[in-house]
């Protein structure tokens, strides 16, 4: 079902801009927990749905932002293709716009790419209610600044996503899961060796003494890899649980998302769930982990999936409910200037990421 609400949405944003009234961009609401609460009038993109164009042999799909992920991925599945960055579908209401706005990628991320890597173009409404289009439908496109990719992870604070063109990839011919009994340190070493050897790993997970590895390739290639790697065959069920975050790990209170260099020190006693070959770690902690993450070369995010939205969080470190890693002064300053360039009256999801934005 295709439904183009662009005109209506533009009108609403223009009004909000001229009247200086903040907007809360809403759709599926499945990632409300992933940021601060926003106060304002609802700008509902849910009905702005529909696949506009999909040419499997072009490896591109273009859709309205309110299109449910389920619908989009069904269309891709029928042609044996996929969104290779495996965005989470926390509920069936999750939309492609929300997926891109939040920029969350699943277990395949280090092996197949991140959400942002697959954005080819975006049509947006900026904070002045102006309709604009950046990028296009082709991967190699270097005309102008990359404003379409800038939208990924910005959670609507730089523009309302209306339309997205995404690169898609063929699904692997076959997928197999191998499991190994191992502690975290040993698991990391094994994984590193397999990746250097070029085995077709497309996901990894270490949790409670078990290393699980997903292989994605041709049947023959997987068989060869299994011979060399060893390990027991296991079901592929773990990966959707990790991708959509329905795994028990994500139900814990005080859960933190640590994004680190993959070889950052691992300690067996940390009791973490480790994905992305070591680059993504989930850990329970009563204290905030911002400083620790920074010391290790990465950043931390408070990941309380049960909350409907965090309390207002400042970019300064004195707030105990801070969700996102605080930004350095210079970085925050440039963020504010970029925000101002796209949304001068700060009407789009104000304070969603940081109080100052």
């Amino acid at each position: 079902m295709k439904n183009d609400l662009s005109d209506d949405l533009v009108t609403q944003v223009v009004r909000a801009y001229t009247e200086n009234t903040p907007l809360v961009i809403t759709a599926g609401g499945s990632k409300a927990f992933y940021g601060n609460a926003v106060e304002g009038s609802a700008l509902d993109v849910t009905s702005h749905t529909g696949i506009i164009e999909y040419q499997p042999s072009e490896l591109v799909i273009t859709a309205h932002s309110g299109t449910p992920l389920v619908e989009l991925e069904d269309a891709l599945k029928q042609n044996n293709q996929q969104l290779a960055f495996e965005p989470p579908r926390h509920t069936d209401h999750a939309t492609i716009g929300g997926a891109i706005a939040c920029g969350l990628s699943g277990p395949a991320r280090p092996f197949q790419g991140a959400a942002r890597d697959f954005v080819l173009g975006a049509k947006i409404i900026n904070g002045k209610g102006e309709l604009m289009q950046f990028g296009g439908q082709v991967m190699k496109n270097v005309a102008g600044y990359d404003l379409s990719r800038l939208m990924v992870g910005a959670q609507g604070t730089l523009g309302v996503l209306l339309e997205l063109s995404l690169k898609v990839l063929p699904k692997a011919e076959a997928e197999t899961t191998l499991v190994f009994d191992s502690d975290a340190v040993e698991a990391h070493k094994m994984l590193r060796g397999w990746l250097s050897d070029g085995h077709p790993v497309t996901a990894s997970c270490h949790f409670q003494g078990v290393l699980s590895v997903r292989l994605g390739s041709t049947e023959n290639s997987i068989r060869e890899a299994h011979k060399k790697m060893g390990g027991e065959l296991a079901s592929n069920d773990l990966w959707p649980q990790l991708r959509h975050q329905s795994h028990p790990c994500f139900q814990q209170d005080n859960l933190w998302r640590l994004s680190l260099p993959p070889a950052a020190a691992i300690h067996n006693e940390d009791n973490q769930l480790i994905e992305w070959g070591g680059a993504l770690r989930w850990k329970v902690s009563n204290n905030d982990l911002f400083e620790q993450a920074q010391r290790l070369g990465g950043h931390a995010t408070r990941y309380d999936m049960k909350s409907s939205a965090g309390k207002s969080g400042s970019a300064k470190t004195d707030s105990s409910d801070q969700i996102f890693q605080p930004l350095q002064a210079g970085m925050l300053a440039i963020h504010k200037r970029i925000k101002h360039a796209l949304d001068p009256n700060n009407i789009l999801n104000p304070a969603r990421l940081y109080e100052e934005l």
Partner: protein
Amino acid sequence: MSTLSDKKLVIRCLQKILPAASVLYEAEDLRPYECDGLSAYQQVPMAVVLPETIKQIEDVLIFCSNQKIPVVARGAGTGLSGGALPLENGVLMSLAKFNRILNIDTDNRTARIQPGVRNLAISEAASSYGLYYAPDPSSQIACSIGGNVAENAGGVHCLKYGLTVHNILKLEVITMQGEHLSIGSDALDSPGYDLLALMTGSEGLLGVITEITVKLLPKPEAANVILAAFDDVATAGQAVSNIIADGILPAGLELMDNAAIRAADDFVNAGYPRDAAAILLCEIDGTRAEVSDQLESAQQVLRSSGATEIRVAEDEQQRAKFWAGRKAAFPAVGRLSPDYYCMDGTIPRYQIANVLTRISELSNEYQLPIVNVFHAGDGNLHPLILYDANIEGELERTEELGGRILEICVEAGGTITGEHGVGMEKINQMCIQFNDRELLQFHAIKHAFDPEELLNPGKAIPTLHRCAEFGAMHVHHGQLPHPELERF
């Protein structure tokens, strides 16, 4: 406009910041910097500086910022869109002395590189660890990684491995005001906005890059290439789509038309089928089993798509030979004519036959031969227009023809530049690809980084005034105004 005494003062001030040998101002010293790879345009700057330390870069930028002197950064000067063309009243900052590989981290599979390091030098240094850096623009023996980031460079392996933006993690940048920004992270994502994506491809307009952390990949276990000949370009184009539709993701997929085939074959004796209307080079890499399986599938697809001849390389030497012609395509074409003008547009793959037909028609109209090399895998087209700059008016006609080709690309649903950047060369065509609001939005972003517009001014993003002057017919996202009127 600087007076002579201003110039002398500027140079004296620069000499306080940098050692004498790092400040060039005599005419013969400035000449080598008067143009980049787009040699048709030349401009000698007021001075050239070659900083060796971060502090020197910072101090030069702060000084120029205070004195309102524009600065143009330059890597290896191989760019094809005039992005490093100097300004008469500006300082050209060459990053050539920043040529060290600072660190190769085999645990994280990354490397910290200075901007002046050659693209190929990265893979060469990583090779002994079984690693390589994937983006491989054809100029890679000479081009700099800093320039690659500024242009978001691609290359033959872009379809499978992505552009520069997909292969870097972190940038150290200094703004025109001398502020240091650390963009991206050693982790796979970073908090806040994706400034890494914004900075990559910004053509030297938002900041000077002083360090790049690149991703290194393990070298694939195996790789092989198929050469397929076709008696019709449209058939070859369709074969490209068929390969992708079959679920094969080649590491490289290149198309050459008959003129390119003959030129390349003459130049390096590649053994290409000289009568083919087009050839496809399809490279597969991965595990040995993967390559074996996909090579088989690819051959089947090519056969059923109407290839008149299919050759599979039997060993590494043959693989290199198949590629030699394609890699030497530009210099090969350079033998055919006193000059050539390399275009760079991208179109949706399925449009290739249509666009090549239109290009052939334009070639006849302008009476200028055009040779076509095409990154078929991602729709990036390089029509090479052959001309003789010594013939009066020929350069102008060539540029006009080039502009019309780019317009065709936009009409076909593509873009005016796939990998060479806009620079100063395609700045007018930006008026066709973007409307006024979008251009103003770009300017607003620029102002967030460089409110005085001192960093590489006059490049990449046209002013509205310029667009009005250019008076181009606006083709907005593939839609012409008044579609009911007949054109072309």
